[in-house]
């Protein structure tokens, strides 16, 4: 089967008067690894449920390889693999029974598509007789992914597969996705972890039901458009407040072991800045220019949209 193409046109959705999605439009190319990046409440799950034909939009249209998710939902479900954010397999069935069930529902067998899931399923196969509910978190995730893949879908929807997962398992999971991409499956994934954006071919940055930007991750960071300084001193907590209060400060926030500082206009001579900080009692001052990452861009976009709309939360 050919990897699916997804066209999302003007999707709107409200729950009891509360808007969850505002006029969402975008295209996902066949074979793309596409990421929806955003915190809880961005609308990611709502959009995934509409794409998976599990929820009706209030307005707009989504097609997957030409199939309308509302009118053609039966055909759609056979070319679609969906892994919801919450564990949704049968906890009282064994690992193997779950997999056999999902294969059977789609009119196939484990044997027929074993090649596709082999690398993932082999890691949990030693526990194939264990009830799925008794697996550890990482194993549950691998089984859920196997079940979503067993009918060889053209489109794989993964809703927050790495939330609450440790850094090592997250890295492993993304390696699995890279392998799957080679099998010719379009993969759509959502995540609240900004650092995972760089692992996607293209990303949509989402916040409060809206898309703030859609680009290749490299383009998102290129578009940042400000000088970004990474600053350290012996008093980090005070440093944050001092930088926030500087006259020409656009933004200052913690970033790992340093503060990211955006001046209103680029600073050429760091000595002046260093002197101003020393005046406020800082020592061991280190100022470096640094490259923005997706998280910097997300913060900037959020601040700009809050300024524009006066959203306050």
């Amino acid at each position: 089967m050919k990897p699916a193409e997804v066209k999302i046109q003007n999707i709107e959705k409200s729950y009891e008067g509360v808007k969850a999605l505002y006029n969402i439009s975008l295209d996902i190319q066949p074979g793309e690894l596409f990421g929806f990046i955003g915190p809880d409440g961005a609308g990611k799950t709502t959009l995934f449920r509409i794409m998976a034909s599990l929820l009706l939009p209030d307005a707009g249209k989504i097609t997957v390889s030409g199939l309308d998710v509302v009118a053609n939902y039966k055909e759609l479900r056979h070319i679609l693999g969906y892994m919801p954010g919450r564990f949704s397999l049968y906890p009282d069935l064994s690992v193997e029974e779950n997999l056999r069930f999902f294969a059977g529902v789609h009119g196939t067998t484990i044997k027929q598509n074993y090649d596709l899931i082999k690398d993932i399923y082999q890691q949990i196969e030693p526990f194939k007789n264990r009830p799925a509910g008794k697996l550890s978190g990482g194993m549950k995730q691998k089984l859920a992914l196997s079940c979503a893949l067993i009918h060889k879908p053209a489109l794989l929807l993964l809703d927050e597969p790495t939330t609450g997962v440790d850094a090592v398992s997250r890295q492993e999971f993304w390696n699995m996705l890279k392998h799957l991409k080679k099998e010719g499956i379009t993969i759509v994934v959502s995540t609240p972890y900004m650092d995972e954006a760089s692992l996607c071919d293209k990303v949509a940055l989402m916040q409060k039901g809206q898309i703030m930007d859609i680009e290749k991750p490299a383009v998102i960071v290129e578009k940042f458009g400000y000088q970004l300084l990474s600053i350290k001193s012996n008093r980090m907590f005070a440093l944050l407040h001092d930088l926030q209060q500087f006259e020409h400060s656009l933004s200052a926030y913690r970033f790992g072991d340093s503060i990211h500082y955006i001046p209103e206009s680029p600073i050429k001579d760091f000595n002046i800045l260093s002197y101003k900080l020393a005046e406020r009692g800082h020592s061991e001052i280190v100022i470096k220019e640094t490259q923005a990452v997706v998280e910097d861009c997300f913060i900037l976009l959020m601040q700009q949209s809050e300024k524009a709309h006066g959203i306050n939360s």
Partner: protein
Amino acid sequence: MESTANNRVIHVRELVKKFGDFVANDHLNFDVYAGEIFGFLGANGAGKTTAMKILCGLQRPSSGTIEVAGFDVYKQSDQIKKNIGYMSQRFSLYEDLTVKENFQFYGGIYGLSATEIKDRTRQMLESLQMTTSADMILRDIPLGWKQKLAFSVAMVHRPKIVFLDEPTGGVDPITRRQFWEMIYEAASKGVTVFVTTHYMDEAEYCNRISIMVDGRIEALDSPAALKAKYNAATMDEVFIRLARAGVRSMNG
């Protein structure tokens, strides 16, 4: 912040917890001091939750000496509970109660008087700049606010130590940073903060961190010292190098 026996608020020696043959916590040793922000890291399945439950007096250890806020976990778990606050990843506020009612409920559980509850609710709402939202039903409040509220509620009885279990999961990058400012403020007033997180940049915000692998503490130091020791640029690198050596996370 000093590290002396006098201001030690958590004292753990040779903590072992077994479930049948499975050793969840394998001879843990560490101390945490007043006003310290202590990051408790580890892969899924490394044994963090078990250790946290023991420190909170919710589970008995198999062996070892453990004191929390000066009380013995075997004999004085009730006193421990009165002196600690706890906030979990999926916070424990009541969605169908108002903001104010949640404060009243938890204040009542901790035995505060009606006046104390009223005063503290007002103070906390002021510092959160949420006075106008006191009568809102919790479910109608944005997630970022809920998380800040949950932290304040966990502090309503002015505990010596507050345990935060993945407090910032799923939160936007700005709110996540505001949450950490609340943590710094609490620590600057002498409250000890014991926190778990999967965001490795947050590990940098802690005074000291421990990294658990397969039930043992494999590393414990300041983020700067750990990066130097493992010759790593970020805490992410340190964590991945240590956790990769673990057997349990590979199966888990």
